[in-house]
């Protein structure tokens, strides 16, 4: 692995960690917020349920993996 790839991998691991789905979901929710905000409609309400939902799904996945592993 080149140094640049190793560096990128470290940054990815540092910011995103072991659950890329949650990170992707957060980015998509922000993109949807930006898209709706451009239409002039209130868009603040998208992020709270999105964040709580993404966290709950992530915890459920981790709990299932842990129960399969035990």
């Amino acid at each position, binding site marked *: 692995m080149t140094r640049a790839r190793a560096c990128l991998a470290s940054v990815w691991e*540092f*910011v*995103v*960690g072991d*659950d890329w789905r*949650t*990170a992707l979901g*957060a*980015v998509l929710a*922000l*993109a949807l*917020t*930006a898209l*709706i*905000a*451009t239409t002039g409609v*209130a*868009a*603040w309400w*998208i*992020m*709270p349920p999105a*964040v*709580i939902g*993404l*966290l*709950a799904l*992530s*915890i459920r996945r*981790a*709990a299932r993996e*842990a*129960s399969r592993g035990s």
Partner: protein
Amino acid sequence: MSGAEVGLAISVFLACTVEAVEALTIVLAVGTTRSWSSAMSGVGAAMLTLAVIVAALGPALTSLPIDVLRVLIGGLLLVFGLQWLRKAILRSAGLKARHDELESFRVQTDAASTAGERRSGFDGYAFTISFKGVLLEGLEVAFIVLTFGANQHRVALAAAAAGLAVLVVIAAGVAARAPLARVPENTMKFAVGVMLSSFGMFWGTEGAGASWPGGDAALLAILPGVLVAAVAMAWTVRRATLSASVAAASAAPAEAGDQASVSA
């Protein structure tokens, strides 16, 4: 000081305290078993590196347009905060090992004792382990200082909160002369995860062009909302884990009894 600035200072102070406690354990282990002067040289070099990172990136980030800064940094903070909060919930629910400073100290001390002969004068092992420990623990703090500080154009306030946390931990470490095992690290990590996720969501949404009802006062609803949801998730998963282990424990003797009756 505004509410958001108080939140900034508390978040950075708590995050830095947790990371400094973990770094202190590493430095204490190599300092007591190898060489204090080399270990402290490693600490100094790592602190200098972190200061250069913050000093170089802070002005660069604050020069970005506010909306770009908020959506970029808010998004990063949200992703980073959700990672902290996820780990904290899993620790709280018993699905991830809690950080134990005494165990960590024992492992580091054993490794330092068996890591080759100690030389008089400069000890490369003590320097390297201290440097890496402080730098790696400090990078998370530098990230939080930069993201929180840049978003509010208060990098200096964030850096001061981090510096205060380091001084408090060093003073406590000198007084205790042992790893700070009684610091409630897991609770503090939970609180930091809630704050990072909440502020990340708040700034990311504003940067994306949406306005919160009530402006900054919306944080007074977002923070408790995220906290309650996170506590509820930890409670639910802990209960499910306990129920599963009780069911497994009660099924084991029944299976053993069935096997005994078949063999009889």
